[in-house]
């Protein structure tokens, strides 16, 4: 008898395991009994927002839209990316997904994102209220909900110690200020994170100089690096500071968080960084006196200055069974008041042109940044490009070789051009 029982238990266990194996990982959108629609919303925003603030907005959405429930699937940025890639491949992507502009091209190629232009048309959504849309082949696939701009941060005390009278506004002034700060022996002038594991330093800390002077790394949407004088000028400018020792040491494997740490601890005088870090810097070093300014432009440049930005973008999954309901959630988050509330919690600039978050007027640094933002143009040429992170990495590798003196700027640009072209061809 005992033997029979054991065999039975083994069989049941095996069946249970087999079922677990077969069903595990599925996160398909579901319609619960009673006709309610449950939308899954995968994003990395909730952990970065004050506790409960995103859920509160979802509760507000649910009360305005009876019959629609929202299930938040939250995780850190990197794991959200991997989760979205895997979900897109398996056809189990959440109905609404938080997107980074750098992912969009690949997801559209994969066919995993719904065409938002069609959804906006069906819902009679007023596109004019949107600050930006990420389009491919004339159709929108991502809408930036909140924008984090990257101005220049300046340590006022270090500038004063180095006898630099005003915040640099062009490259010559910047290089001179960086050299003066370094000369004090107390800190380095500038900080440049070029770690290849997270190569976004190329976007935020290198190409930002090109965009700040109205330059571009693309031509007609295609790579334009070989022979590009604007990009070469920036490379030469940075190499000059690197050779002069004005850049904090450890640049080749430095990560973004190291950059912020160096600035927060008063070990560098200037950095280009996300406005999202203002509160973090204040919390970690209450005594640090700093301000923000526009990224210095090429000498003599008087046009509009581009300022890099990163977005919390939003899109709808191509495999969603409830695209209309999913778009209701998108339009809710893009609404004037809701967008202002969300951006206020995130300390980000709004994706809705009519929204004005309270923090913009309440805090002098954010006010200053908002003025810079409005006076310039939010620019990020990596948004919407194929394998954007890999483009940054391949440029990073060539740029590091140039900084190390192993090749010329032209050679680095030609090699990057060739790598980018093959990535664009896919």
């Amino acid at each position, binding site marked *: 008898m005992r033997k029979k029982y054991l065999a039975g238990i083994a069989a049941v*266990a095996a069946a249970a395991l087999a079922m677990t194996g077969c069903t595990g990982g599925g996160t398909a959108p579901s319609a619960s009994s009673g006709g309610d629609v449950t939308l899954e919303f995968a994003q990395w925003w909730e952990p970065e927002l004050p506790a409960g603030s995103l859920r509160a907005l979802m509760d507000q959405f649910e009360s305005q839209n009876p019959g629609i429930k929202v299930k938040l699937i939250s995780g850190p940025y990197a794991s959200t990316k991997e989760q979205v890639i895997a979900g897109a491949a398996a056809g189990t992507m959440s109905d609404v997904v938080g997107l980074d502009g750098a992912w969009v091209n690949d997801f559209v190629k994969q066919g995993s994102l719904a065409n938002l232009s069609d959804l906006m048309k069906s819902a009679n959504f007023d596109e004019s209220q949107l600050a930006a849309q990420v389009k491919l082949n004339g159709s929108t696939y991502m809408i930036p909900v909140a924008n984090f701009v990257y101005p220049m941060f300046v340590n006022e005390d270090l500038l004063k110690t180095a006898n630099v009278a005003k915040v640099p506004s062009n490259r010559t002034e910047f290089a001179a200020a960086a050299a003066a700060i370094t000369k004090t022996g107390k800190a380095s002038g500038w900080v440049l994170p070029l770690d290849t594991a997270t190569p976004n330093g190329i976007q935020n800390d290198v190409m930002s100089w090109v965009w700040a002077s109205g330059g571009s790394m693309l031509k007609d949407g295609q790579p334009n690096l070989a022979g590009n004088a604007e990009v070469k000028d920036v490379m030469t400018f940075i190499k000059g500071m690197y050779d002069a020792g004005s850049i904090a040491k450890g640049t080749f494997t430095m990560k973004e968080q190291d950059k912020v740490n160096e600035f927060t601890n008063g*070990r560098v005088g200037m950095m280009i960084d996300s406005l999202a870090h203002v509160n973090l810097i204040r919390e970690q070093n209450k005594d640090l006196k700093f301000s923000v300014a526009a990224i210095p432009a090429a000498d003599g440049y008087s046009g509009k200055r581009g300022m890099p930005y990163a977005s919390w973008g939003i899109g709808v999954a191509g495999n969603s069974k409830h695209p209309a309901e999913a778009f209701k959630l998108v339009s809710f988050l893009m609404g004037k008041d809701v967008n202002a509330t969300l951006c206020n919690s995130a300390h980000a600039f709004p994706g809705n042109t009519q929204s004005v978050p309270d923090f913009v007027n309440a805090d002098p640094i954010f006010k200053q940044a908002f003025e810079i933002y409005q006076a310039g143009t939010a620019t990020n040429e990596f948004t919407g490009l194929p394998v954007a992170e890999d483009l940054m990495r391949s440029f990073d590798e060539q740029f590091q070789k140039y900084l190390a003196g192993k090749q010329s700027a032209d050679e680095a640009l030609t090699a990057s051009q060739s790598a980018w072209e093959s990535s664009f061809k896919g």
Partner: protein
Amino acid sequence: MTSASLPARVQQLGSPTRRPGSGKAKTTLVPYGYLTPTMVLLVVLMVIPIVMVISYSLMDNVIMKKNPQFVAFKHYSDILTSESFWTAVTNTLFFTGVSVIAHLVIGLAFAMMLNTGLLGNRTKAIFRTIYVLPWLFTVAIIAVLWRLLLEPNGVVNYLLMAGHLTGTQVEWLSQPETALFAVTFINIWSGYPFYMTSLLAGLQGIPADYYEAAQVDGASPWQRFTSITLPQLKPIIISMALLDFIWTTQQFALIWMTTGGGPLGTTEMLSTYTYKLAFSKYQFGTASAAAVIVLVISMILAFFYVRAQKARD
């Protein structure tokens, strides 16, 4: 095994005279019933993923394409002719080879120190606790800790400069000349306690009579070490070295969190190379081919490990 050597109860279970006909089939199936949970786990967690990865490696960029095409061994030829792949192989061999040798030497030295009769039990307990510490940290902690220690403004540079051993701040993890040595050092630091504890157990199992007899015969300490200690530990050393070789070739987290494969690709390993192919270039077919190559290398090493284990038994 003959039926005579089976325990009585097992013989009884397998007896055809107990229930003729269907009973025989049932008793034949019972062992499979017991094995089923393990078999299902093996199939779900091992066989299916491995077969999937092998099939992915033969297709034209799966996952990113809805209808991938069969491309046979194209990805393998692409990888094997890629310069960066061979750089990764060379770096991995250096990183792994040096780590395994250093783990063994340091582990054995510390194990012998902890096994000596020259130190009191309390002293040994203190040293055992100190020596085993690196093993208690997770890779993330180890990476953060050493990044802080080795950064240009870090403690290591401070001590070197204070001791006038260097005049400038050394960028240990950021200079192409030092980065591979630095990550290898970190890996050695984090891995030697595994050898130390295992070898200590091995040392404690060597009968004291051997050493006493050798001493009576006039053998020097070095002769005792080479003629008694090493031969006695040989099976453990071979098994551990093979296991360590397999684990270290697959080390990803430590490299990713310290150097990310940089600077200038000097710390690029097979693991980081594969990860970048998959999650940066989204070339899952090529990444799968790289993973299969690593799998084959690991299987060859595993074969030797199993053979060493069998010889030991």
